[in-house]
């Protein structure tokens, strides 16, 4: 058996059906993003450079902005909590609910909540906690995990969903028409919204200046969840801050376009506290839980640029590795290029478990090209490979690079190897007992080896050019 990298093994074993769903879904999103950005802007690149600068500035002054956000939120009547770990966040949220005797809530999609496994924890503690984003709702019914940041069920097709709805009693019959599936979820979920006493959301941005929490959804599920609920709890990563309201316009313009090819996401909500006194529908109490859960370790690392991420998923959609392997191959909440950087870093002591992720990349750079906050993902992948090397972590299937390093750092050895390898033109190397080589050559024919010819040609050429 050949030792493959774990992502590679996953990609080989994935069903064709699942792979087709992922490839089609991600390719379509990449096309939409490209079309809308270039239709709307002459030079979209300058926008993302600006967004990167704003985020870097915020991260470099995070203590100041977090303090400012805290006081702005409190001024707006929001109760602010801090959670250094996932466990702290879960305990805080549970105690808010228990103190108020709340046992039913809806939850709108939050990657931070996925990261700390909030749902199973609340359910274990007797809270009915229902996901309301259509994709997350289906994930919850299937006891699955999301495989994409924006489209959690990109790996599923309509037939699987229709079977799930029938099995779970959402519908009495099998119907795989996407519109029917959506209507059935609509009917089922709105009854749940009306019964819920609280709503848990994530947060896309918080303006430190005004304390406005910005939530975006296309379905309107967070707004519907909030309307009948008495209590709103938002779980927000500490890196989600921007300095001012004006900056929100920069990020909102980039987020929708990068994520789904929309100028703005349908429901863009600016929340600065519990509902207005005259408003009959909406929470009377609002809590923001700021989550660290390893983000300060990332801030301390040489990969802090990854904290600029606004979770748009453009890098997942464009990545050839993600498309072949799907998000589940990354074995963590965040998959794809952003996940290959963020997941090992957030893993803390378990870094070795995920140290293979940064190695499963050809460093083609597409992820950086599409990133709305210009994160140099390929550079960060290299820094993490370096970290793994320094910490002597071996990942299964990753080819050993030390023989190459020896060759490449010694000009004389390199020259010799180039010339000697010409022997390959005359030897049947495809039958050499080296399995990776056999496998590689099983699908390809090597061209004739010309090692050393370029140097010879170049030397001759420069000698000629020196002649008068």
């Amino acid at each position, binding site marked *: 058996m050949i030792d493959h990298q774990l992502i590679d093994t996953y990609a080989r074993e994935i069903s064709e059906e699942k792979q087709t769903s992922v490839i089609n879904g991600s390719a379509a999103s990449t096309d939409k993003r490209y079309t809308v950005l270039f239709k709307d802007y002459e030079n979209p690149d300058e926008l993302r450079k600006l967004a990167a600068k704003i985020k870097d500035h915020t991260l470099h002054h995070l203590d100041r902005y977090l303090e400012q956000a805290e006081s702005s939120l409190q001024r707006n009547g929001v109760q602010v909590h*801090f959670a250094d770990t996932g466990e702290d966040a879960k305990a805080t949220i549970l105690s808010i609910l228990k103190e108020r005797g709340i046992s039913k809530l809806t939850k709108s999609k939050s990657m931070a909540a996925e990261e700390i496994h909030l749902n199973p924890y609340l359910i274990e503690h007797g809270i009915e906690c229902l996901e309301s984003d259509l994709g997350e709702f289906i994930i919850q019914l299937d006891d699955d995990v999301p495989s994409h940041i924006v489209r959690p069920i990109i790996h599923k097709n309509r037939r699987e969903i229709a079977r799930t709805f029938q099995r779970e009693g959402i519908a009495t019959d099998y119907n795989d028409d996407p519109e029917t599936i959506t209507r059935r979820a609509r009917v089922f979920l709105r009854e749940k919204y009306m019964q819920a006493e609280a709503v848990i959301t994530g947060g896309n941005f918080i303006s430190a200046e005004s304390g406005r929490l910005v939530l975006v959804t296309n*379905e*309107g599920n967070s707004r519907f969840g909030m309307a009948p609920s008495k209590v709103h709890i938002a779980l927000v990563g500490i890196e989600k801050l921007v300095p001012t309201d004006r900056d929100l316009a*920069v990020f909102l313009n980039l987020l929708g376009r990068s994520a789904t090819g929309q*100028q*703005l996401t349908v429901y863009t909500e*600016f929340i600065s506290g519990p509902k207005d006194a005259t408003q009959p*529908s909406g929470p009377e109490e609002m809590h923001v839980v700021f989550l660290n859960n390893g983000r300060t370790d990332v801030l301390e690392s040489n990969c802090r640029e990854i904290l600029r991420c606004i979770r748009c998923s453009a890098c997942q959609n464009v990545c050839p590795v993600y498309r072949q392997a799907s998000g589940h191959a990354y074995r963590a909440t965040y998959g794809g290029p952003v996940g290959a950087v963020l997941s090992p870093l957030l893993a803390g002591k378990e870094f070795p478990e995920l140290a293979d992720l940064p190695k499963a990349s050809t460093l083609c750079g597409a992820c950086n090209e599409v990133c709305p906050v210009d994160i140099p993902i390929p550079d960060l992948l290299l820094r993490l490979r370096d970290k793994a090397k320094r910490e002597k972590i071996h990942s299964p299937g990753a080819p050993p690079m030390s023989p190459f390093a020896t060759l490449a750092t010694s000009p004389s050895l390199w020259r010799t190897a180039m010339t000697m390898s010409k022997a390959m033109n005359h030897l049947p190397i495809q039958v050499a007992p080296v399995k990776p080589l056999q496998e590689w050559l099983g699908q390809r024919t090597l061209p004739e080896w010309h090692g050393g010819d370029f140097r010879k040609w170049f030397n001759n050429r420069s000698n000629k050019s020196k002649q008068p």
Partner: protein
Amino acid sequence: MSSRNAIFSKIRTALGDVQAKADYPDYDSAVLHSKPKLEGTPSEAFSRNFTAVSGKVMNSLAELVVFLQENGQTRGYCDPRLMPEVGNALAAAGLTVETAYDRSRYEDYQFGVTRATGAIAESGSLILDDAQTSDRLAALSPWVHVGVLRESEIHRTIPDAMAALGPSRNILWATGPSKTADVEGILIEGVHGPGLQLALFV
């Protein structure tokens, strides 16, 4: 140590290493403007962009009445303050109009007429602000939402609308009907909120 202190102390330690801290960039929000989206007067741009996100502009009460009748949306809610301008005309045309939203009968409302406190021309968004929306649910649970809008309240650009957000506790920019593409990337309108988003100019 409390989580708060732990987090602040970790941030300060982490930032101790950062040699060159990035300055806040000096920028003009005009870089965000999408020129093709802004062509024409604000109301022309709004109508065009609102239509592009599947919204429907109603230029008169008569047009709204016909639209609701043709779509079989005959029973709904109207913000009591909008009865003189809108609701009475709907009732006069034979539609059932209620001025109190009763949550226990949420399925009974096929349309909801509420005030849009503004709009954004560049993106085709309606702005609903908590202080002036008679009931958030009335704009959310019915299949048809009608945002009643005055032409003078259209902001030209997204940064303009951002600068004018105001003090309300909750402000919504609704850019088209509620939608999803979760199932195989196929666009379906009307997931949790309205399947039809209408703007009525008064």
